[in-house]
């Protein structure tokens, strides 16, 4: 083969390769109406014990994590704030969930978030880099978002979105544990589990903010958490989602866990003294059959430690 032929073939091959970029399909889920939901709500000063009990009341982490499973723990690490400001998920909650997943035999546990402030600052100052780093276990990986892993996903059941770029690891995990922190938000009222999807999507995230509630519900048809654990140990009541003033934070020492993302959000809303119907995202997701928000259909196991 002479040089010219080689170069020509090289160009053709690369062209072929780039045209055959992988497409990603996710089966849309969500029935017309959701069934009854199980939910645990536990309070106490020892957050590690609180998380363990919340999981126990749902039947244990083994219900969600099969031996060898790939697990994603997705906290909210969006902001460069320390834990006391209530803008990011409490590191102890994250750590305990990682430990529970390991005990249940997880093959690997990945932790990541698509941050708003500079990634490294967020990971460090949220306390999550340190606490995850201290878990001496090869199966645990704290990842920075890798732009190569965003894949265009068709949202077949979407009412407002046709497709969006979603982080591959969040889609392919055997068990996806969504661990938002409960806080105030200027547009959606509150940011809870359904809004935490912002941390696993790419594209122009700001563009989603027009008609946010329906778009979040649409995304919830393809990003389906196996388990939602809402960190309500502190509630950021004002100036959310970023906060920055301790007087805006109320300590509530509570954790909510459920396999039903809508029910978890609905119950968390009541902690703020609000009716679940006030949060449009919850309503939109409920109407799409993605979960339960009818209080009569949510079975709450409540405990105070």
């Amino acid at each position: 083969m002479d040089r010219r032929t080689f170069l020509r073939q090289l160009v053709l091959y690369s062209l072929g390769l780039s045209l055959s970029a992988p497409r990603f399909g996710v089966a849309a889920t969500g029935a017309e109406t959701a069934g009854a939901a199980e939910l645990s709500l536990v309070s106490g000063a020892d957050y590690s014990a609180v998380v363990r009990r919340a999981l126990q009341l749902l039947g244990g982490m083994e219900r969600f994590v099969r031996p060898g499973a790939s697990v994603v723990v997705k906290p909210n690490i969006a902001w460069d704030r320390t834990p006391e400001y209530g803008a990011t998920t409490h590191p102890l909650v994250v750590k305990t969930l990682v430990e529970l997943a390991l005990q249940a035999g997880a093959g690997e546990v990945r932790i990541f978030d698509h941050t708003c402030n500079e990634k490294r600052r967020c990971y460090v100052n949220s306390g999550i880099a340190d606490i995850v780093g201290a878990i001496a276990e090869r199966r645990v990986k704290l990842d920075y978002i890798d732009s190569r892993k965003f894949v265009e996903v068709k949202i077949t059941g979407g009412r407002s979105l046709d497709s969006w770029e979603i982080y591959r690891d969040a889609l392919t995990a055997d068990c996806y544990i969504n661990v938002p922190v409960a806080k105030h938000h200027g547009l959606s009222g509150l940011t809870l589990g359904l809004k935490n999807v912002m941390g696993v999507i790419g594209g122009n995230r700001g563009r989603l903010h027009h008609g946010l509630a329906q778009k979040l519900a649409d995304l919830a048809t393809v990003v389906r958490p196996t388990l939602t654990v809402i960190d309500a140990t502190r509630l950021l009541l004002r100036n959310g989602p970023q906060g920055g003033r301790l007087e805006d934070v109320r300590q509530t020492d509570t954790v909510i866990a459920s396999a039903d993302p809508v029910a978890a959000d609905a119950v968390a809303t009541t902690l703020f003294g609000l009716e679940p119907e006030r949060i449009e995202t919850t309503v939109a997701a409920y109407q799409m059959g993605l979960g339960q928000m009818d209080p009569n259909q949510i079975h709450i196991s409540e405990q105070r430690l």
Partner: protein
Amino acid sequence: MRTGDRAAQKPLYRRLRLVRMASQLGFLLLFLFLFVNTDYSGSDTIQYAVNLLFRIDPLLAITAMLAVRAVIALMLPALLLVGLSLLLGRFFCGWVCPLGSLVDGVQPAMKHGRRRQTTLFPGLAMSLLLVVLVSALLGLPLAGYVDPFSILVRGLAQAVYPASHNMAESFFTMTYLHAPAWVNQITEPLYGFLKETVLPFERKYFALSLLSLAVLAAVFLAEAVQRRFFCRNICPLGALLGWFARLGPTGLRGGDDDCGACRLCSRICRMGAIDERRRIDPQRCSLCMDCLVRCPRQVIFFRSFLPGSRGVGVSLSRRRLVGTLALGCVIPPMLGVRRLTAAPDPLLIRPPGALAEVEFLQRCVRCAECIQVCIGNGLQPVLLEAGIEGIFSPHLVARTGYCEFNCTLCGQVCPTGAIRELTRAEKHRTKIGNAWFDTDRCLPYARGIPCIVCEEHCPTPDKAIKFRTVVMVDDLTGQQQEIRHPFIVDELCIGCGICETKCPLPGRAAVFVTSDGEMRNPDNILPRKGETDQWGY
């Protein structure tokens, strides 16, 4: 010394030359290590003295101190290099300077044949040095444009380094998406390793990247004209060190009349320091040791100068000296009559902690350290917004990146104090500009579409972006609707620009920052409601 003894010296000379090469490599690696570590590393304070190179540079130290007419403590380490050069000569150029070492490194790739031996513009570097010094004295900073480290770091930070990230990312994206699994088993860990060690953490974008690269590339390409072209003909730092070397007690003794027709030393000298009569000029000699090793007679060796036996030296003619001084005197007054002096560009937003504009420009050595370390990719080199003498100085361009609220790195790496080092609390209070809404573009104003992205990102604990709820009539349907219009609270806004960066509109943002209200300029104050100040607002 008899000839036989001299021949016995050859292994010693060889060893000396090896030490010189090792020194070049070592300092080059040290430089690259510091360069790569000019970044956030998990701690709010920078880990190493990453700006060391700029702080031992006597050219930058003298010009900055002349310009501001004060001693800049940060730059006093430059005295060390002055002292060593007085003692040892221009060793820095041959043994330490990373740009010199890199230039030596590309040397084998350049054609040898037709290159000139004698220095093309023997007086130019010294003239440049004089112009730079005189104009610095008159308040015009030029050193940063000709200083070798500024040229090197600017070119690397704004072009070569980000481009290396771009290349690596493209390559490993290709393997990640298309290569078989067994390839990825090798490439993915390799990519991870490179990212953790040498590659930039994030992809960054820079204005003037091509210009920065062109200046640096020119230094390398000039090697085709003659060896160490930049060092011999242009580098004013080299000229300054050479001047110190001339005053010093040591140097090399060249050949003599017994050499016959042999002028090998003069021909191989990379600095053009050896003339036809084989005299070695300490003002140019970088002590590379090549001639010691190559000399067939082994007659070249160190000697100490006796009074009156100084080498040839470069000196400017009187006419040239006067002309150079005059040029240095004329430029600064010319710049004072430009329109920019009367009305500065409102988009010239300097980093937090930047001194007032005049002193800021006098101190800034265009080293790009702040631009490189800026983790938000907010700082960009200026083209003409600060006047022609402001080119390559830093400003915030908030559409591409913003000033991270809790970050104080730029003030920590600035080698001259042009950007003051701020504590985190000071940084939170330092207003570098003010944000404004373009209500013709902003969705809630212009279209009645709810949007809060700027408010969500606003980092001040009491948000500088707030809402007022208004009733709007929809243009299309005529129906009334309630909508929240964002507005800026000037007293809370610090001008970080995250609102402009994150504004989801395509193209021009609907919220943008200007330098209005910046704390470093008392003339730039914004009116306050309910107060009457000296301007009668």
